[in-house]
């Protein structure tokens, strides 16, 4: 490459060229490799996606027990983001709609986790005792109520509203995310008219069928994430 003397000798030429090619191809391969490694990890931090592994989580429930998705492998898991003072959440609890879904889940062997991502001082934040009291007084039937005051689990799932529903199949794949039903209102009488997206999703998974409307619009109050 840089030979000043033009009287190069035959025996050396192969080595000469080999060195050159080695260097340059190493360089170009590194370019390509750089490009390829650039491809691989790009989806890791992105928002959850349907038919992809659901983001892992570890959170303490209202009984002090640590729940993690890894431990629940083999079970279908339903996630419900909640805030008991949000009018949209109240619509579903006051009418008994949410409790009915929770019982339906329990009957089908589905683990139902209610998640509270409100930090202290924000609407919906509760002590573990208050969480249990709410479950009792509302006759709710979740498997557990997870407390996520730092919003880590909420952000991992990109949960934006209360309620915001997710369904994870036994293989840990996210199969539903979105609204509880199709009519975004606080009116109780809309329940009957609405398409019950989440109920349909649970039924489909229980039967081993694909979920028809796997991504729908979540509606409700915004999740009151901590700003710190």
């Amino acid at each position, binding site marked *: 490459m840089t030979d000043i003397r033009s009287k190069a000798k035959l025996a050396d030429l192969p080595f000469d060229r080999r060195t050159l090619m080695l260097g340059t191809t190493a360089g170009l391969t590194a370019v390509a490799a750089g*490009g390829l490694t650039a491809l691989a990890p790009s989806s890791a931090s992105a928002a959850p996606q349907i038919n992809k592994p659901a983001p892992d989580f570890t959170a303490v429930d209202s009984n002090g027990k640590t729940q993690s998705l890894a431990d629940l492998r083999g079970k279908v898991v339903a996630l419900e983001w909640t805030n008991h003072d949000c*009018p949209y959440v109240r619509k579903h609890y006051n009418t008994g709609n949410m409790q009915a879904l929770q019982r339906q889940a329990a009957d089908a062997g589905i683990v139902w986790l209610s998640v509270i991502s409100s930090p202290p001082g924000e609407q919906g934040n509760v002590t573990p005792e208050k969480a249990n009291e709410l479950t009792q007084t509302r006759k709710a039937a979740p498997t557990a109520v997870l407390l996520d005051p730092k919003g880590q689990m909420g952000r991992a799932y990109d949960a934006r509203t209360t309620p915001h529903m997710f369904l994870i199949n036994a293989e840990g794949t996210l199969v539903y995310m979105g609204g509880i039903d199709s009519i975004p209102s606080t009116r109780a009488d809309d329940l009957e008219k609405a398409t019950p997206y989440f109920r349909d999703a649970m039924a489909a998974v229980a039967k081993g069928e694909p979920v028809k409307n796997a991504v729908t619009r979540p509606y409700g109050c915004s999740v009151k994430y901590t700003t710190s």
Partner: protein
Amino acid sequence: MPGRGTVARMSGVFDRRNLMSLALPMATLAVLLLAAKPTVALESTATTSPRVTATLISDAAQVTPGQTFRVGLRQKLALHWHTYWKNSGDAGAPPEIRLSLPDGASAGEIVWPGPDRIPAGPVMNYGYENEIVFPISVTVPRDAQPGQSFAVRAEAEWLVCERECIPEKGSFTLDIPIGDAAVAAASDIQAAFATADTRKPLSSPWTTRLAPEGDALALTVEGADLTRTAVKGAYFYPATWGVVDHAAPQQLSLSDGVLTLALAKGQTFNPEAKADGLLAVTDGGGVTRWFEINPSISTAPGSANPAPSVIETLPLWQTALFAFLGGLILNLMPCVFPVLAIKATAIAKLSGGALREVRLAGAYYTLGVLVAFAALAGTLLAVRAGGTAVGWGFQFQSPLFVAGMSWLLLAIGLNLSGVFEVGLGVGGTGQQLAQKSGHAGSFFTGLLAVVVATPCTAPFMGAAIGAALTAPVYICLLIFLAMGLGLAAPYALLGIFPGLARALPRPGAWMVRLRQAMAFPMYASAAWLVWVLSQQIGDFGVLIALSGALLVALAAWMYGIAQHGTGRGLVSRGLATAAIAGTLGLLVQLNGATPGAAARSETAAGANYEPFSNARLEALRREGKPVFVNMTAAWCITCLVNERTTLSTDAVQQAFRDRGIVYLKGDWTNRDPEIGAYLRSFNRDGLPFYAFYPAGGRDPVVLPPVLTEAMVVGELERASKSASIAPPSNR
């Protein structure tokens, strides 16, 4: 709250405008006086909560049979409380209004005023603060009887939120007299409508299209009036949920006549469906207007050009010419210097050679440059097709590449120093093959020139390369090849005009001196790359790089002994080969090293900057703080020079402090998808990159890649000033 002040300001404006709009009703003043009916404020009794005072208003105080007029739900909101647009964003819900009208009357839909963005942490909502009117057109039946009254009843429900949300509802009644002449409502009611009308969506005069690119969407708007001076901000409000990720920042880029917004695809984006919505455009005076757009969706990626910018507005030959000039300038860039060294020695060699040889060497060198450019373009295109945005100079983000490069440069340096010779061996050879060797040398010199030069291309070519990479494949290749020709031009010229070669000095002892001197830029580059490696993977990288360097030196020395010895030097050659193998073994070690584990030397307590993150940038902008963003990398020499000579100087740092500017620095030494995406949103693919976000959440000003103190301070001054004159009307 900037929003509040704005609305107050606007209503002031429209009081005046209202006087003008009263000019027409003045004609009916006589009628009015005769009828002895004063204009009455037509506003229903209010439904009041601590959050909202809601009424039903009418813009007509008296209606005539067949007249079309407007009623509206008027909401006066307490500070920080908001109600929603028809697409409420991530949370919330739009108001619902049900009208009951006399038989034969008809009503239209709500004409939704253009909304503002109302972020809440990672959630983005679209709605209104302060005061808003939701207008609906109503037509009085032709057989309505003057003297009677026209009763409008409204049942409305709305959700009002601050951090918490409260559903509210109200029933409203208006009895509007029916007469022989129309009478407009009193000025305060007109003013309320007028305020809402400043947000009334206008029909868009522009052609718009939406192009999906992986997880992203590019919204392109074309119109001659879309210039950098006329447009200071833009935001796309999709009419329905799921088209666009509402919370993702929308990065604006503008070239005259073309506006592009980089959007994140929503969860249910469907290229078959409509993606209509409102484009909010904020002009130089800080006034925002909303335009209804229904962009066509280009489904076949590559068939449409998603980010036209410079490329589309310039004829192809001009684009190529600029790329060629860019390539030519590359010869003068600091990191091409090691390559210049190679070239200088090569030219020195040529001065003694035959004419035909000179020509061929030039041709081979050019070919090498072009092949390297084509390979780089191809790799970038392939990776881009995979949906990941990589940056120009990205190969320097791979520690493997950096270590390999430093050893290669060391080996070249040792060769120049005379430790070993390339192509000097035992046994005789024909002139033919020697020539071939020379040509292969020229070819690979060309390849090397490009590979080493890439980090320097960004300053001059950053924007053009960014545009090229979003352009159709053939244009992209054309630009890269034109750049390659530019880089090769000085050398190729020697081939085309052999007279120049003849004018070159005769070979002599000076060549040996020159060659030896040229070894030092090589060593310097190798040393710099070791430092880059230390930034990437810390002290472990330095250990590996230096051990490798030792082995390379050993190999070179051994090989040199074999060359100078009398025998065949099998032992020396064997040792040299073993050393090279050991070096390659070290490279494997690097593979396992985790990038990012670098001991960052500068993030100490005394640091005058904060590390860049999108979240931090968004938070600061929401607070209305001015922000200066600097994207840098250890392998970007221009970046480091800019920092030393400009950004870190007392004058600039003082200017930052005086204006309360938060200095965010992003380090792209290792691959970082967040920074990659950020640069892409500006249509850039390389470093350096500097952007200034003036106070008040205004849109950023992108600074040129080569900075001077006066320029930076001047730019801060200019941007801050225009910001203080025109507070944003759209948050």
